[in-house]
């Protein structure tokens, strides 16, 4: 099952302009429940550092 979503976002180079952007969500469904899920999210520079800050272990446990 795939859903495609459209958004109108601001052009970072010219904030007076907008552009159409798209993203997707795909799931595998079995017996009325999601079993797998894919989407368009990517890692960004520094993201791992962000999540591995020392206080994370505190908030997880």
């Amino acid at each position, binding site marked *: 099952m795939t*859903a*495609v979503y459209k958004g109108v976002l601001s052009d970072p180079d010219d904030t007076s302009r907008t552009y159409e952007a798209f993203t997707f969500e795909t799931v595998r469904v079995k017996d009325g429940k*999601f079993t797998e899920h894919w*989407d*368009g*999210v990517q890692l960004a520079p520094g993201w791992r550092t*962000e999540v*591995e800050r020392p206080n994370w272990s505190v*908030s*997880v446990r």
Partner: protein
Amino acid sequence: MKTWHVLAMAQRARTSRMPAIHWTVHPPEEDLQQLALAKTPPEDRLRIESHLAHCQECQRSFEEAGIFADRLQELLRSQGKQDQRTSVRYKVRESAIVAQCNPPDFVPAIGQVMDVSATGLRIRLTRAIYRGTQVQVLVEKAAVFGTIRYCRANSRDTYDVGLIIDQIVMRPGGPPIESLDAATGRDGFVKLQPRKTAKTVDPVDVLLIASVVFGQARPDASQLERNKQLLLDFFSYQGDPAIKAARFFADDYIQHNSRFLIMNEITHASGRDAWLKAGYAAQGHANLTVNGGIPLRDPILVMAEGDLGDRRVQRGAIRS
């Protein structure tokens, strides 16, 4: 028709129903099945239909009940039998082992299933089983646990017992119980007709086996529509994450999002629990679902398996 055909479809309708939060206010599943079979008394019909008008969950269940009823009719028609849409029970003649569980009786009886519905069986035996007895009935591909509701003596030293089904356990890989047919002449056993060794392949049977019992065949159109709605419901759900996870995710759910996968290394969780713990852990630290701010509501397209069909690109040249 085999007993398990009816049982499998009944079980599918039962298991595919979404968990009810306020289940006591919903009409029982049996009532929805009766309504689908046009057997509901007028006064009950109004009550159920008024509930259906505003309850999406029961609308889905009723849709399932309708599919169940329609498939039974298809099966009957394919076998050249009379349309019994107004009848909730379907006649069968099939061997069955009946074991008394409570109160226990260690000598099982062998009988014949005479008719079957989504909620009950009628079995012919050569001994009586008292009302209220809990029994296990083994038929081909299924074990049924139920409670005896009546036991009537017939003219030829046989008894018809009716039981209401408490639970159905399908046994798709289990051996057929043809061997029962040879168990004749023993004290207290019904003499059964030998079963034909050669079986004809009924296309409807094949479809039922594939789609109902094994559940691996391509879903039907209404199932795909329900799956689409499930996806829409998921992204519009604003409630508690734990309830959301329980409602929408299988136990072994996997979120392939790269950020979630890294979170698994931190939370050491897996399955549905991993999604939940990742969300809690990331709260206030990082975004797990970054998509540039595109709102995940009102999708411009929802596509299910098979929606694209088989559209082959035709190549050719225009000739003058």
